[in-house]
């Protein structure tokens, strides 16, 4: 008997569109030949606005110059949560592609009726709809008659890859001219009518409480408008930015603080992380059908320090009250999420708060953007309806913003008599990697913890594996080991504030896994590229490794003082594939000479944008690996300027080559975080290749190399 074929699953809307189905919330035609596209994602220097414009123009068959991208605002935009996790192309891109395809169809249908021709006979070129007998109309002519105030429907089919004209091409980013000609595009450069300036006083010692505040010094500063104090939160509002700075200095002199909280011992972070109370989660477990025989067991420990976002711009925001309503301008990654937390702190309905995005400098995750927005809102309360602009100091940006979490990672492998992996265990200790606003019943904003009636300090959590995980991101091996057990020990105390930094835990986990694999391959005398390929079945994974290896002419002949290393990961195990090969030079002081990368993001919407992201990620990862760690003593963060927290400079930047493997028929994924893990591991493995020592603790500095050499000898 023939069984009826199972019904195909009902078609589904892309997630962002399902959450915001009204088509008019995504795009609107205006009668002047333009279309306004309103994504819920925001530009953070990654070029997303251009890529989304490409997608929309392509699907609508219009010229890119007709697309106007509107900035996200809670007043009008679809709610797409947060711009993070390399998900904007996946979420916003797919939603827009679908919405535009549906809108195109609606207009075609309407045009067919109006022109009296079959819909299949119609064609669209740069927004002009034409058909047989020279009949024609356009999106803009029909715009008043066609309502887009209707919900998107599932089952719409966007164009096939071969019919797309714009996506897949490296068009120029639409935001770059403004930035090169120094037009006022950044939030930092906006000047609102009647704008005042605010500064917030924060303690030098971590979490010290404000005991007493003498205000007379600050009151004497010219231009002072208000001094605001609520518990340990204190700040000034002045007519000028200069006046605000002077008033803050005076206020600082008049402040008395409690002792503050004790910080961990920076010199022994791993012991600290492993000794803290924690919550255990078994991330993944795989059991072998027939377990192999263990001949010996190897265990290695890896650490990564706290890492600062270290944006070049200190965070900035503006706020203006009107009665019990407040308008906020912010470079937050999530306008709706920030609004939700502001509503909690202010005890106001969300509708009373409008949060509007303006571009800031690159943030690389959850920095102080959201914190400074609450600062501005609190100070603006004392400004009599005038807007207040607040900007943090460099010192504040480097000490009061959340950091990427420090991690201790232990990997243990059972090997059989031939040195093949029989079982694999991976344990991670560290704080959670996410304490973003808008996701919990309590706010995550710094000033909220400082008020006279404070909210409890949020302890960071980890997203579930289904969402890519947090500290455990990329901890499940992509390699086909027979069995494994992956555990995460998330700290339930948080003496140093952590939240999302580019890649969350993936950089640490990929560093650990790929270093460990390199060690096993070296012990067997097996080439590390061959070793990886032998353990990978995923062809896309194998392709990026082979492409990077071929481009780097793996493995170049040995030269004294030069080393080569490889690293690979698929970001989140579901995103972009990336392989990196590093060439390093040196003895105790090393420099990275060259990075060769291959990446597969599926369909690369804007290939040059992908290269820009991968190249930037590779250089930033090199900076993390060679230089970066947040420094602290037992009372305070001490790495509060660029001398104490150095980042890679022009003269130190390695050559970077990127090969993009285009796969136009595979759904696109983001590229912003794919390179960090592979590059980190590749550099560490190249250090071993050059010097014969394994440095298992980041950053790989002169001191760490000498320490590793001493351990080896």
């Amino acid at each position, binding site marked *: 008997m023939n069984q009826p074929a199972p019904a195909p699953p009902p078609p589904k809307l892309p997630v962002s569109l399902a959450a915001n189905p009204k088509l008019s919330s995504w795009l609107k035609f205006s009668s002047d030949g333009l279309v306004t596209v309103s994504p819920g994602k925001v530009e953070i220097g990654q070029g997303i606005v251009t890529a989304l414009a490409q997608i929309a123009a392509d699907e609508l068959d219009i010229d890119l110059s007709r697309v106007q991208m509107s900035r996200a605002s809670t007043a009008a935009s679809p709610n797409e949560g947060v711009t993070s996790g390399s998900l904007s192309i996946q979420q916003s891109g797919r939603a827009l592609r679908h919405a535009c395809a549906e809108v195109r169809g609606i207009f075609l249908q309407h045009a067919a009726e109006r022109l009296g021709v079959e819909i299949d006979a119609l064609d669209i070129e740069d927004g002009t709809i034409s058909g047989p007998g020279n009949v024609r109309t356009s999106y803009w002519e029909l715009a008043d008659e066609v309502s887009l105030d209707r919900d998107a429907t599932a089952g719409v089919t966007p164009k096939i890859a071969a019919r797309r004209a714009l996506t897949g091409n490296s068009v120029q980013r639409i935001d770059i001219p403004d930035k*090169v000609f120094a037009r006022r595009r950044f939030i930092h450069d906006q000047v609102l009518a009647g704008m005042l300036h605010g500064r917030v006083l924060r303690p030098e010692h971590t979490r010290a409480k404000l005991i007493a505040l003498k205000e007379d010094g600050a009151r004497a500063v010219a231009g002072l408008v208000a001094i605001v104090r609520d518990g340990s939160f204190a700040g000034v509002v002045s007519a000028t930015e200069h006046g605000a700075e002077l008033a803050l200095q005076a206020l600082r002199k008049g402040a008395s603080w409690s002792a503050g909280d004790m910080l961990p011992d920076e010199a022994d972070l791993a012991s600290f992380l492993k000794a803290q109370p924690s919550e255990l989660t078994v991330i993944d477990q795989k059991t072998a059908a027939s377990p192999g025989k263990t001949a010996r067991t190897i265990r290695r420990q890896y650490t990564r320090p706290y890492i600062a976002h270290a944006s070049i711009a200190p965070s900035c925001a503006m706020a203006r009250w009107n009665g019990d309503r407040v308008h906020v301008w912010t470079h937050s990654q999530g306008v709706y999420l920030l609004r939700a937390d502001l509503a909690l702190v202010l005890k106001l309905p969300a509708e009373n708060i409008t949060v509007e995005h303006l571009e800031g400098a690159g943030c690389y995750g959850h920095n102080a953007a959201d914190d400074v927005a609450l600062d501005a809102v609190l100070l603006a309360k004392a400004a009599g309806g005038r807007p207040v602009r607040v900007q943090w100091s460099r010192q504040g940006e480097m000490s009061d913003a959340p950091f990427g979490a420090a991690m201790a990672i232990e990997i243990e492998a059972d090997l059989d008599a031939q040195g093949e992996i029989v079982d694999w265990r991976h344990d991670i200790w560290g704080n959670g990697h996410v304490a973003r606003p808008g996701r919990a019943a309590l706010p995550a904003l710094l000033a909220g913890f400082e008020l006279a009636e404070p909210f409890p300090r949020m302890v960071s959590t980890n997203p579930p594996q289904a969402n890519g995980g947090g500290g455990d991101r990329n901890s499940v091996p992509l390699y086909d080991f027979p069995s494994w057990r992956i555990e995460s020990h998330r700290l339930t105390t948080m003496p140093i504030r952590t939240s999302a930094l580019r890649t969350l835990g993936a950089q640490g986990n990929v560093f650990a896994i790929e270093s460990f694999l390199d060690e096993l391959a070296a012990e067997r005398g097996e080439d590390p590229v061959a070793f990886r390929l032998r353990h990978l079945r995923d062809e896309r994974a194998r392709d990026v490794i082979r492409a990077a290896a071929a481009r780097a002419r793996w493995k170049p002949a040995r030269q004294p003082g030069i080393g080569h290393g490889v690293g690979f990961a698929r970001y989140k195990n579901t995103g972009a594939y990336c392989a990196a090969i590093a060439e390093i030079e040196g003895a105790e002081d090393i420099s990275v000479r060259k990075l060769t990368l291959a990446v597969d993001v599926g369909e690369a919407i804007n290939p040059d944008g992908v290269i820009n992201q991968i190249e*930037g990620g590779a250089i930033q990862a090199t900076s993390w690996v060679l230089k970066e760690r947040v420094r602290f003593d037992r009372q305070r963060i001490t790495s509060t300027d*660029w001398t104490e927290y150095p980042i890679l400079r022009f003269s130190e930047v390695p050559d970077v080559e990127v090969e993009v493997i285009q796969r136009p028929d595979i759904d696109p994924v983001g590229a912003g975080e794919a390179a960090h893990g592979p590059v980190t591991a590749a550099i560490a493995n190249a250090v071993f290749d050059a010097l014969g020592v394994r440095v298992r603790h980041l950053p790989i500095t002169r001191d760490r190399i000498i320490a590793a050499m001493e351990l080896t000898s």
Partner: protein
Amino acid sequence: MPSVRFRLNGVELDVDADPDRSLLDILRGQLGMTGSHFGCGAGECGACNVIVGDRAVSACDTPLWSVADKDVTTIEGLGTSERPHPLQRAFIVEQALQCGYCVSGILISAAALLKRNPSPTSREVKQALDRNLCRCGSHHRMVRAVLRAAEEMAAQ
């Protein structure tokens, strides 16, 4: 209030302000010229670089009095979209930035370099930009853009 006279982007100017205040503060605050960006306030990042005389300096730790009677060029004086400086054109062609916050200071450092060395090597460009920090990792594109601008200027 004492007054300090200097030439800003070719225009003679008298600024009434405390001469100890930073040039950046005067530019952004008093003069409303926001192209020079605040990054650190300590002359460590280059986001606020301006050209004084023929050298790129950080405006955040340059006191106003020190530019008296001098020529100051900011990013606003470098070029406009109608009449772009070759560097600005080259940065667009090379798509030489990600977030772009550091870029006005980098354009200024590069402009100062090309004035004293019209045909720099890639190494010389990197040296000239070594006090400018870029966090996004756009260094190579920026170096390429500076070299492109130098070539274009040499051809003119």
